[in-house]
């Protein structure tokens, strides 16, 4: 694009090139629409470059490093295992770059015009992009995502006080790390650095993973403590001078860095929503209907910017739905569940709810009865299934290695309206962690095989 050129007219303008935005752009292009994708930084957004992919890369590396020196029971006696943090970072950045290039390639093949810059609405159907282009659109899709929430008492400086993005871009392993917050991001980062050898403190305002099932959290908490992570419950940070973090309960923690991971805030800065008649609610989320239309029916919004749960896969699905809807198909965002995975050790994965509720029964099957878990010494965990009076599955929770894979079956079961029998009577490959789905549904039906429930069955 050249400055001063006539405005570009397109069918669909997508603002934000993260996983939701580029998915929407590709789907719209597949439907024969002319599409521009406006991204100010990197294609793939936070997920590919700063969050999901980098954290999973580093967690994998930390597991290899940790396991290499903690596998004596298997007969492995490795001496003097070291880790090169720069090399680790190189790999992690390389993985993101590879994926980002992949997205760029896909955009090119789908003839999507990628504009480098930030977009601002100047009228209801007109966007000004900072690269000088003006875009006139028939429909727009907003996928601007979120940014790490700031703590006024502890502003990010990129060196000593880090957000989660910076915590995943370090070229050294700090001796001590304090993490403010105890949500899933904080838990993942704490276990990752503990395994790499840091002395880690977690400062939880209430409790670790306070919004999650206590049965699951207690297992993860136990493992955090086994890794030497020091959990400070009911505490808030007060002051940090670069070496000592002072808490409001009087505790003083010596730490090289402080990572603030207290959540995500919707990102709509500079979008000029008011010029397009797009309304927000709560802490700045964009309001949408079931077709993901904002208060301006020609403008759609998806992903983190429209609210919880702020998860990449929710955004991707909404990318598809919004593009189809904007292209005139009758699609709605009608999903029953958004599965969620915490990549702790062991992983917690959940689809639907396993909270006790009226008319809902919950059954649990312990991992200690599963062949694969025993063989691999990973018996801390369980599968839980919640179901209604017709045996229709309403929720599943998996605490297990590879829970991220196992939960997908549960999500499918719930979307399909499957019953306990549907899952129990499906052959699950042996020996796998997926068998916990079979075992727990069998147990719920009163016909458990690998666990004796006694009279309670």
């Amino acid at each position: 694009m050249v400055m001063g050129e006539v405005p570009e007219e397109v069918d669909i303008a997508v603002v934000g090139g993260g996983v939701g935005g580029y998915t929407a752009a590709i789907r719209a292009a597949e439907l024969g629409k002319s599409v521009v994708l406006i991204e100010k930084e990197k294609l793939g957004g936070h997920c590919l470059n700063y969050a999901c992919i980098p954290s999973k890369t580093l967690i994998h590396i930390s597991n290899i490093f940790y396991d290499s020196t903690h596998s004596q029971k298997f007969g492995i006696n490795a001496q003097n295992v070291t880790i090169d943090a720069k090399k680790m970072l190189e790999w992690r950045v390389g993985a993101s770059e590879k994926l980002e290039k992949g997205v760029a390639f896909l955009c090119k093949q789908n003839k999507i015009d990628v504009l480098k810059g930030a977009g601002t609405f100047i009228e209801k159907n007109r966007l000004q992009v900072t690269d000088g282009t003006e875009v006139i659109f028939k429909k727009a899709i907003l996928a601007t995502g979120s940014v790490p929430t700031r703590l006024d008492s502890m502003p990010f400086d990129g060196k000593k006080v880090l957000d989660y993005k910076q915590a995943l871009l370090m070229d050294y392993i700090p001796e001590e790390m304090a993490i403010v917050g105890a949500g899933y991001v904080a838990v993942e980062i704490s276990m990752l650095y503990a395994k790499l050898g840091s002395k880690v403190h977690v400062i939880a305002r209430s409790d670790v993973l306070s919004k999650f099932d206590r049965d699951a959290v207690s297992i993860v908490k136990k493992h955090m403590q086994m890794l030497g992570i020091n959990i400070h419950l009911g505490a808030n940070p007060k002051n940090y001078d670069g070496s000592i973090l002072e808490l409001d309960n009087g505790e003083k923690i010596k730490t090289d860095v402080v990572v603030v991971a207290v959540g995500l805030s919707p990102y709509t800065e500079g979008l000029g929503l008011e010029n397009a008649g797009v309304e927000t609610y709560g802490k700045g989320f964009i309001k949408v209907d079931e077709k993901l239309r904002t208060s301006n029916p020609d403008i759609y919004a998806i992903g983190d910017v429209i609210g919880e749960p702020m998860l990449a896969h929710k955004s991707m699905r909404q990318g598809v739905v919004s593009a189809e809807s904007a292209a005139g198909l009758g699609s709605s965002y009608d999903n029953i569940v958004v599965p969620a995975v915490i990549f702790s050790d062991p992983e917690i994965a959940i689809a639907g709810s396993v909270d006790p509720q009226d008319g809902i029964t919950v059954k649990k099957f312990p991992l200690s009865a599963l062949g694969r878990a025993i063989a691999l010494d990973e018996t801390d965990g369980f599968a839980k299934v919640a179901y209604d009076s017709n045996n229709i599955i309403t929720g599943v929770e998996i605490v297990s290695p590879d829970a991220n894979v196992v939960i997908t079956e549960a999500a499918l079961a719930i979307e399909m309206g499957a019953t306990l029998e549907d899952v129990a009577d499906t052959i699950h490959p042996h020996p796998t962690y997926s068998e916990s789905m079979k075992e727990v549904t069998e147990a719920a039906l009163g016909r458990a095989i690998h666990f004796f429930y006694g009279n309670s069955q």
Partner: protein
Amino acid sequence: MEEIKFVDIGEGITEGHVQKWLVKDMDDVKEDQAVVQVETDKAVVSMPAPKPGKIKIVAKEGSDVKVGDVMAYIGTPEELKSAGTSKPTEKAVAVKNVATKPQAQGAQIQIDKPSQRVLAPPSVRHLAETLGIDISKVKGTGANGKITEDDVKAYASSTSAENGKANTEKTEEAKQMQPVTATERIPLTQTRKAIARNMELSWQIPRASHMDLIDATTLFDIVKKEKEKTLKQLDIKLSYLPFIIKAAVEALKENPHFNASYDKEKQEIIVKKYYNIGLAAEAPDGLKVVVIRDSDKKSIVEIAKEIDELHKKVLNQTISLAEMRDTSFTITNVGSLGGGFLAIPMINYPDVAILGITMIRDMPVVKDGNIVAGKVLPFTITFDHRVVDGAEAVKFGNAFKAYLEDPEFLDML
């Protein structure tokens, strides 16, 4: 005390119209005695008493009932005293109203009341969205009330009535502009609704028609001759129709794609190996199609008898659903009413074809170079052009015509 509820009789029926109570309030009834006639969009059904006892009628004649609504109570006089106090209709409505639509608002996506969700797989939900249907209104026929693709399609084809409602609202304003007495709005009866729905389905079929004239002199003579005999010996009024059915069945055997339906989804022709010939019949409440099952295996006399019985049932409104479904081919006989020369019928969906017959009449016929007075039977075969072509329709027509003009064939029957 037991309730007599209006139940779904297995055809996806959701509402009915209480046509007539066959017993009086507080009558003594026997077990299985038919107590009430309910008009649904498919048929008039009689509901039996579940046990002997006194009956207390709740649903008034002329009122509409939904599946699950209590129509009456049966029990001892003491038991019945308490019956009137509950409000069964409202209760039934409340039970119906459980389906909730999944919401995709910004808030945390969770199943708050999982047992109340709409039970439909994602592909079916998407189909409903594509068709612009609120899936929470669709009744599921699968296990646990799961909504299937077919349920959504069936609902889609039945929403024409709904659209009618929407139009009513739109024209409300216009209506107010006119004197109230200038027009009258008559809600469709259940039967009329069903007819409307079927006609809309039929209209989707890309159709064409082929017409021809049959020299019916021989047919006329044979029927005239046999008529007296069968009336005397068997007490049956013989008409041309059984012969026409027989000739049509033979023509169908030679042209099996006319004895078929079309599966649009799979793009397959479903050829029927049976000959269930539908006959269009005008009932007091509108058009109905009765079925002569396995017409190929029945004699002329048997068919004549069955037509007579079915016709009586249509007039008495005692025809059952089973006697009105699974046609493989349909014949509509305009001639029985006396008028008309040629007509183009609507195909009886999902059949591939329909045969329209008008009256046999005296017409000039050219025989051996001379014009003589002949008996002529005009007919039309209207067919689904996706499945068969005009050439095949001509072949079918010629075969049909040849059988009806062939004295040997007719004699054999």
